[in-house]
């Protein structure tokens, strides 16, 4: 049985620091997605909202807020919050409903208006909340965790500050032509080096900003797409929202500690071509590979990837997690140019055929966008959609056939979405 759904429309409100209400960004994105699909709001049978935890009572319960802004239509609704994976879970809700035959046309919307500076826990005195406690007892901000991963990568895999800077330079270049990106400016390695250290070894330009933005998708059954006259739409054949397996041995936000691997063996090391010996995988790798399994494709089939580059160093971790290369191979892959637009030069050991490469974050990534949490995973799929249609002007991946979008967030949330044409 085909598990495909069609992506008929994608729309975004540009990322920035606009200082307006998040509903406005979501509304603009929803209208853009509907226009892109050639459908009217009244055609939508199901609205899936991705919630922001800011801006009032869970984003005023997001799905309904967007439905009201578009004009109450009697459409069915859902809302979800899953940290950075919120948008992907909203897509998953719509997808499940479509595949169950309960609706043909669904609208997915996420939007946020982010505060300045560090993300911080929800207010009040809440000593039973690990997210509150990590700030109180450790001063463990998000950049501290990013810096811990970055330092570990330097020690274990020989990553250098120049490698981290090269990720920023690449993503800034990718984002130059993206009308929805917040930062559209060339960045040099020197710019990165000269930016202030936030959490050693990471500098300001290594760490993604927090942004306002909105993104939306119109998803339909394959049958509806055909009836609508679109015979070969961009399709989503797989979406993974797996939880970690015990013991979770990678330190995550907002953890004070990993699980102990004293009594159950930890996830086996990956070996060769992103394949695995043993039964379980480390969390980020498991997120991607569950999606590959569902889609029946592998990393060697990818034309592009959108990964959650909360920091430059994390992008390198993702190369390995999504199976583009073996653990420890990310620096070589980056240096070869295989993950830059038009930069595949061969001379690296990875699963992607030399000469083609696999551009990572052709949208410009979080480096060019900043993070608008509930909109971000939806925005990643917007980019996959435009790339697969061949309409990503100024940043088009040649002959894009398949892409993956991955993220990971607080409290064991993460997602991977595969789109193909």
């Amino acid at each position, binding site marked *: 049985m085909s598990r495909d759904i069609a992506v008929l429309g994608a729309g975004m409100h540009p990322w920035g620091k606009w200082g307006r209400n998040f509903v406005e960004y979501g509304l603009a994105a929803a209208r853009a997605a509907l226009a892109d699909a050639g459908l009217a709001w009244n055609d939508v049978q199901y609205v899936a909202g991705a919630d922001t935890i800011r801006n009032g009572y869970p984003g005023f319960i997001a799905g309904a807020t967007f439905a009201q802004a578009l004009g109450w239509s009697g459409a069915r609704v859902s809302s979800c919050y899953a940290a950075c994976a919120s948008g992907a879970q909203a897509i998953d809700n719509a997808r499940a409903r479509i595949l169950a035959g309960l609706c043909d046309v669904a609208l997915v919307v996420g939007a946020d208006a982010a505060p300045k500076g560090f993300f911080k826990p929800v207010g009040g005195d809440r000593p039973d909340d690990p997210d509150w406690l990590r700030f109180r007892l450790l*001063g463990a*901000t998000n950049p501290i965790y990013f810096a811990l991963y970055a330092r570990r990568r330097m020690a274990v895999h020989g990553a250098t500050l120049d490698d981290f800077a090269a990720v920023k330079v690449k993503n800034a270049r990718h984002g130059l032509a993206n009308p929805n990106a917040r930062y559209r400016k060339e960045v040099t390695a020197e710019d990165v080096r000269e930016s202030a250290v936030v*959490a050693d070894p990471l500098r300001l330009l290594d760490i993604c900003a927090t942004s306002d933005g909105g993104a939306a998708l119109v998803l339909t059954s394959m049958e509806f797409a055909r009836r609508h006259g679109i015979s070969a739409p961009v399709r989503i054949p797989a979406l993974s929202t797996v939880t970690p397996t015990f013991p979770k*041995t990678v330190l995550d936000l907002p953890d004070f500690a990993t699980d102990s691997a004293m009594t159950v063996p930890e996830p086996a090391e990956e070996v060769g071509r992103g394949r695995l010996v043993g039964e379980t995988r480390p969390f980020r790798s498991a997120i991607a590979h569950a999606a590959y399994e569902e889609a029946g494709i592998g990393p060697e089939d990818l034309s592009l990837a959108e990964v959650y580059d909360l920091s430059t160093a994390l992008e390198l971790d993702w190369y390995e997690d999504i199976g583009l290369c073996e653990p420890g191979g990310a620096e070589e892959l980056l240096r070869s140019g295989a993950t830059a637009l038009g930069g595949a030069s061969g001379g690296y050991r990875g699963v992607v055929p030399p000469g083609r490469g696999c551009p990572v974050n052709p949208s410009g990534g979080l480096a060019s966008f900043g993070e608008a949490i509930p909109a971000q995973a939806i925005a990643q799929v917007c980019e996959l959609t435009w790339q697969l249609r061949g309409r990503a002007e100024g940043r088009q991946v040649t002959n894009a056939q398949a892409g993956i979008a991955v993220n990971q967030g607080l409290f064991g949330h993460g997602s991977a979405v595969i789109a193909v044409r």
Partner: protein
Amino acid sequence: MGTTKQRRPAIEGWYTAEDGAVRLLGTRCASCGTPYFPRNELACRNPGCTGPKDGSELAEYAFSGRGTVWSYADSRYKPPPPYVSPDPFVPYTVAAVELEAERMVVLGQVVPGVGVDGLAVGMAVELTEGVLYEDDETAYTVWMWRPIS
């Protein structure tokens, strides 16, 4: 002036400093042996554990006081509340430390005076107690890592 402030843990029950040795306090499953930090009193979370999983299997456990640095980082900017920052802000260092016996990684601030230049991945460290923040009467303490000299 000159009076000694009273010292109090910033959080109760997360570590002990009795007998001069600082140890993190958590719980451990009597059935499968899995240790937990912070303290888990609800139910053993090992899906393969065959214990009762009603909390009765979890007893207090004091962790090893020594480990090796898994990674480390510092904070050059004042974090938002609920972190209680001195004024002016003083940068601090955080280490993720691997406990060999328990096979897990635990975070902690590093003692004041030791920055990222004084640390390395794989370095041996031990637990101590340090002041996290103060008010007029009280110095609030927390567990901290320090290099073993």
